[in-house]
């Protein structure tokens, strides 16, 4: 058994772009789990207000000009992370998950304001997270929720972006928060309940970790998630699975009444496509545009091309040679059979054909396929549990379409421009709700 330790009580053992296989090796998870249990006890003794205060302090620090972590946030194009860590975001998130009273994670509280019955949320225990490398902030999003619910967190990162989570964990350990009573607490309160590791997929460590887990949290593509789910586990261990899904945008004819309004919608679609390098399950690949507006779907595609150019300017593309080759193929095809708008190089591409229907197979690399529909409700038939986010640019019909789409399996119907935000519910659940056991007294 070979467990590469990327982050532990001594801090991080890997640079952000480093190779996880150069990190210290453990031949058993015993030490890590023992330390995690100790860290979790300190976490349980703390108030959720302190935990929120530490996260908020990190969020504030990581947006300060000149801050080293803020620079890293910028270079990874994950500006969402420090905003997500702010108290104003996390307080409602945890309240939603904990039946409206975040105090339930600290102790017994009334089930309802006037209720005699008390309940509280107990941490599950040891959460083992398997985090994919596609979106660098996934690891932090997963871990912070585990910490706010006072669990111990063992995170197995992927080889790609292996050093990113340890970097942010070590930055979080250095954060301080001064409580209202003047006492200063350290971010180590949080990070002592986290260990980040890497193991080869074939290594026996995977099964050992799975058996230790009180809850398994798996983010990844189908093959990876299935492999994790097939690992042995103890009776009673629960799973949270964030598997592969695809996302799209719907633009209604009412948003195509004139160029200014259509351009605004295009600008928001472009923002969603560029965020997360278009690698998230919530990243759009297909843009369904309704016919019948003053602007045609093709005219909208042209506007979208202009807005993609603007939105792509700040962040360099992250495109593999194989993806670049695939993008060239689509460009040639649409130059010949339809219309194509694209940058010099492979910074972005927008494709349109009157004949296209259905969801496009993702091409990645900031590539959007604009497809006409006669009626926005036609899109409903394309949806299933495999479709995650539908970004909607609609007027009064928004909730009605959201009703129809979510009935078919879509998980989120935010307005365009908000697709990339990680919010709750997510994939059909309030994740922090799943990370606790509800008990009563």
């Amino acid at each position, binding site marked *: 058994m070979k467990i590469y330790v990327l982050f532990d009580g001594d801090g991080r053992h890997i640079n952000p772009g480093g190779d996880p296989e150069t990190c210290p090796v453990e031949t058993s998870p015993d030490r890590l789990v023992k330390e995690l249990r100790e860290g979790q006890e300190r976490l349980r003794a703390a108030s959720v207000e302190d935990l929120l205060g530490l996260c908020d302090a990190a969020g504030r620090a990581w947006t300060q000009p000149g801050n080293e972590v803020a620079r890293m946030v910028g270079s990874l194009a994950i500006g969402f992370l420090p905003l997500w860590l702010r108290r104003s975001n996390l307080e409602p998130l945890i309240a939603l998950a904990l039946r409206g009273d975040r105090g339930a994670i600290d102790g017994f509280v009334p089930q309802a304001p006037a209720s005699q019955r008390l309940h509280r949320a107990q941490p599950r225990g040891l959460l083992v997270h398997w985090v994919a490398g596609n979106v660098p902030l996934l690891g932090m999003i997963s871990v912070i929720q585990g910490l706010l619910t006072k669990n111990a967190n063992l995170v197995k990162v992927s080889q790609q972006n292996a050093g990113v989570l340890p970097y942010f964990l070590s930055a979080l350990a250095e954060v301080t928060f001064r409580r209202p009573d003047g006492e200063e607490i350290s971010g180590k309160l949080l990070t002592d309940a986290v260990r980040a590791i890497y193991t080869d997929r074939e290594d026996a460590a995977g099964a050992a970790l799975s058996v230790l887990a009180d809850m398994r949290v798996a983010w990844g593509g189908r093959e990876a998630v299935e492999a994790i789910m097939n690992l042995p586990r103890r009776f009673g261990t629960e799973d949270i699975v964030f598997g592969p899904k695809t996302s799209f945008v719907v633009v209604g004819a009412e948003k195509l009444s004139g160029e200014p309004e259509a351009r605004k919608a295009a600008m928001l679609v472009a923002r969603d496509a560029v965020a997360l390098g278009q690698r998230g399950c919530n990243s759009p690949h297909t843009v369904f545009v309704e016919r019948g507006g003053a602007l045609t779907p093709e005219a909208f595609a042209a506007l979208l091309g202009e807005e993609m150019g603007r939105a792509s300017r700040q962040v360099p593309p992250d495109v593999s040679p*194989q993806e670049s080759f695939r993008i060239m193929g689509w460009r040639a095809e649409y130059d010949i059979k339809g219309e194509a708008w694209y940058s010099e190089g492979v910074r972005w591409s927008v494709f349109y054909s009157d004949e296209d229907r259905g969801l496009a197979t993702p091409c990645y690399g900031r590539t959007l396929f604009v497809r006409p529909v006669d009626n926005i409700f036609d899109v409903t038939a394309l949806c299933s549990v495999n479709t995650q986010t539908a970004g909607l640019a609609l007027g009064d019909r928004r909730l009605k379409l959201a009703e129809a789409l979510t009935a078919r399996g879509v998980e989120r119907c935010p307005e365009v421009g908000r697709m990339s935000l990680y919010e709750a519910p997510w994939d059909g659940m309030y994740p922090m709700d799943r990370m606790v056991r509800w008990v009563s007294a």
Partner: protein
Amino acid sequence: MGAIDELFMLPPYATRPGEHRGLLRAAVREAIQFHCANCGPFDRWYRKQGLDPDAEIEDLARVPYLPVSVFKRLSLESVPEVEVVRVLWSSATSSQTPSRVVLDRTTRDRQMRTLAVIMSAMMGSMRRPFVVLDAAAAQGDDLELSARVAGLRGYLMMASETHYALEARDGGIDLDAAKLEELFRKLSARRTPVCLIGYTYMLYQYVVAPLIRGGRRLQLPPGSTVIHFGGWKRLEQQAVDRARLNSEVEQVFAMDEPCIRDVYGFTEQLGLIYPDDGNGVRLAPIYSEVVVRDPVTLESLPDGMPGLLEFITPLPHSYPGIALVLDDMGRIVSRDRGENGRFGTRFEVLGRARGSEIRGCGDTLPEQIYQVKEVAQVQA
């Protein structure tokens, strides 16, 4: 005579620096004009690049290029159907969809002549016995075997006689080392050099590896050549690189002057082959030029920098495969250095372009998820 015909009348390798480039540019321009006039989709695409087909070409790297995968996606033809004499399908290595290109007589003649002169430059113009490192494909044999042998067909026009080194047996393929040894003994007695030819992985897996396991070493007639092609993907999985393959080929075949050539080429520009010098370095003949493009900016890269390989040639007449970018990575080693009296662009193939990284929850789903279903009528 047009520039294209003039170009293909010349011997394959330049004997003076840059002597052929003006003619190649003129021939490529002539080819572009032809395909724009005869292939509507190509004309549409070319003009969308903002270029005039009649414009002079000053720099081949500025010629608009198509990704080779376009022949998997679209049917691009520059001759009437009645003139098509053959349809080629690629091996579809990186996707399930094969490329489709149509050949007319002109294209086929250019392919055959080009292949013949490059082969002659590699091993002399005298026809010689070819020993194919495969089993003979009998009628009704399995499709994979037939496809492999079909891929060899062009090379076999240089053969005075053809022998097959392997035998299909019980659903597998076996080497009869004793039979091969006897064949080499007879050919050696005639002092006839032979050409051993086959796919790279077949050479290793079915010939070299069994001979090494059996501790055998076969004497090849003087002047013999070993030619292999098809890429290294399968051998990389077995940790076999060029140095090891060459070393083990020399271990099992006794050759007076070892001549082991790895040949690079692709269906969409069939006839143009790029044999290496034994060390992976290849020289572009005067009929084509190689460009290396940055995968992100798509600009041509300075010599030495790795990027996507592009090949430009006026050879295809029946389809517009003039400037094609491949999903193979490579780099230019030198230009017009004149090694062995041959000038031109020398390059290396570095292997298939790196695939996309793990995409986690944003990964693609099974293809059927994206297929259009019958649209349900839902009232708004």
